[in-house]
């Protein structure tokens, strides 16, 4: 990744970001004093127990949730500016496809809304993106004709339309069976290497976090705060066999022991 050395502006930079939600009964601190920086082109996984604010953190970066205090920067700008420039692609836990649209029409949605924020040069075309995620030949299928894994691939293709510089993924494979999840993990790494985009990936699976990420950001719950940033020293490009190595086992064991204290 020599390109990363040239680029100076971090893809994502959070300094002392806190998010508090008010409800009638109490005030919930979802995130407290989160600070970290993510260089462009890198792959960071966010790992933590449920309720530690992983999803909220992604939503701060995506300009869906505004921080109560602290500053969030995306490519050196406010998250709103990055969103309006379509620098951000978001993949949800649920594929969130429009059920009346075929696969290709779902991928095309970003071209049809958001008026001025439409990308000038779309990069890969919708059909090329479907091919990239392994769905060539399924363009005309409706979401209910696709399996859960295929639907999630469509949503990844949609998020990649317009070549966003940052891809935010909120437990995208959490609802899938393990075999499908393993395959999609490999395909995601392939997409990441092909596109060179920065990926911020939320998961509650230790193995997924270790296998995908160059670094793992571990969050502790109540309130959500950074516990540890663990660099993953595994050979690149990652291949599935690496999971059977003692090095991978040691990393997973370390993540697990930290997670137990979160």
């Amino acid at each position, binding site marked *: 990744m020599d390109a990363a050395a040239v680029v100076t502006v971090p893809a994502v930079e959070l300094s002392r970001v806190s998010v508090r939600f008010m409800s009638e009964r109490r005030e919930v601190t979802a995130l407290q004093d989160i600070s970290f920086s993510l260089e462009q082109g890198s792959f960071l996984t966010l790992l933590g127990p449920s309720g530690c604010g992983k999803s909220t953190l992604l*939503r701060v970066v*995506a*300009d*869906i949730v505004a921080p109560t205090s602290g500053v969030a920067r995306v490519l050196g700008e406010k998250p709103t500016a990055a*969103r*309006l420039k*379509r620098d*951000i*692609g*978001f993949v*949800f*836990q*649920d594929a*969130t496809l*429009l*059920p*009346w649209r075929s696969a290709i029409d779902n991928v095309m*949605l*970003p071209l*049809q*809304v*958001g*008026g001025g*924020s439409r990308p000038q040069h779309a990069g890969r075309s919708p059909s090329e993106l479907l091919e990239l995620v392994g769905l060539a030949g399924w363009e005309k299928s*409706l*979401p*209910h*004709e*696709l399996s859960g894994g295929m639907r999630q691939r469509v949503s990844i293709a949609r998020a990649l339309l317009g070549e966003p510089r940052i891809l935010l993924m909120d437990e995208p494979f959490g609802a899938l069976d393990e075999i499908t999840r393993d395959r999609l993990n490999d395909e995601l790494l392939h997409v990441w290497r092909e596109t060179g985009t920065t990926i911020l990936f939320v998961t509650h699976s230790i193995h997924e976090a270790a296998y995908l990420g160059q670094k793992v950001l571990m969050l502790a719950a109540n309130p959500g705060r950074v516990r540890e940033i663990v660099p993953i020293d595994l050979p690149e490009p990652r291949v599935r066999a690496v999971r059977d190595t003692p090095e991978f086992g040691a990393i997973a064991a370390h993540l697990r022991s930290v997670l137990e204290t979160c």
Partner: protein
Amino acid sequence: MASATSETVTPPNADVQAARAAFLAAQSWLRWKRRLLPLVGGFSLLFVWWALIAVFDVKPFIAPSPLVVASTLVQKSDVLLSNLWPTVIEALSGFVIGNLFAIAMATLFVHRKSLEMAFFPIVVLINSIPVVAKAPILVLLLGNGMAPKIAIAAVICFFPTLVNMVRGLEAVSPQAMELMHVLSARKWEVFIRLRLPMSIPYLFAALKIAASASVVGAIVGEWIGSQQGIGALIIQATYNFDSALLYVTVLCGSAFSVAFFLAIRMLERLCVRWAPG
């Protein structure tokens, strides 16, 4: 959920083929039963009707025999048709107007919550007044022509469509709204691309109710001071103790109502090809 991918190829085995043939035969017998049994049921009820009239010697001004009804249907077909048209026009116009108003108001309610809070309870209140009580008020307001009948049909259609349309427009998932936000979609784009298509199945559920209800509305409207239409013919036949004419008129009205319902259902099948859920 089973899609084309789950097609399995069976080996050319004699046992398997015999089992498949038996299965297909059972399936086709079941299909025939489904088609024939309702006919058998219908004809047996007609027979019971005919037998009751014959055995108890019921007078024709109290209830007609099915045979008399059938012959009246043929003889009076021109009278029936000339009275059916006004009802059809009133019901269809009321249907279109009532539903358009309901869709417009639902759109308004979804975008301006305070309007919904202000006016929805009043709509519920007006809806709780029975049609037969609303009808005279509208006749006084709108006179004796087609207008009050159309208005009554429209008022009847309005409520179910309003309620379902609001539900449908709000049936979008929070994640879909977040997706639209990330894509910087404007409010009208969210409406056109997300809320409106999402509401179509809900809309059709309401339209199917409204189709039958609009015919009821038009007929009830015609009961009050009208010279033509299915409703007027019903009143006229009743006062003349012409039970055969009364029965064929009712038959005619319900045939139209069923046809209207089926037309909406066909339209629904064309529009909603994506199975929700």
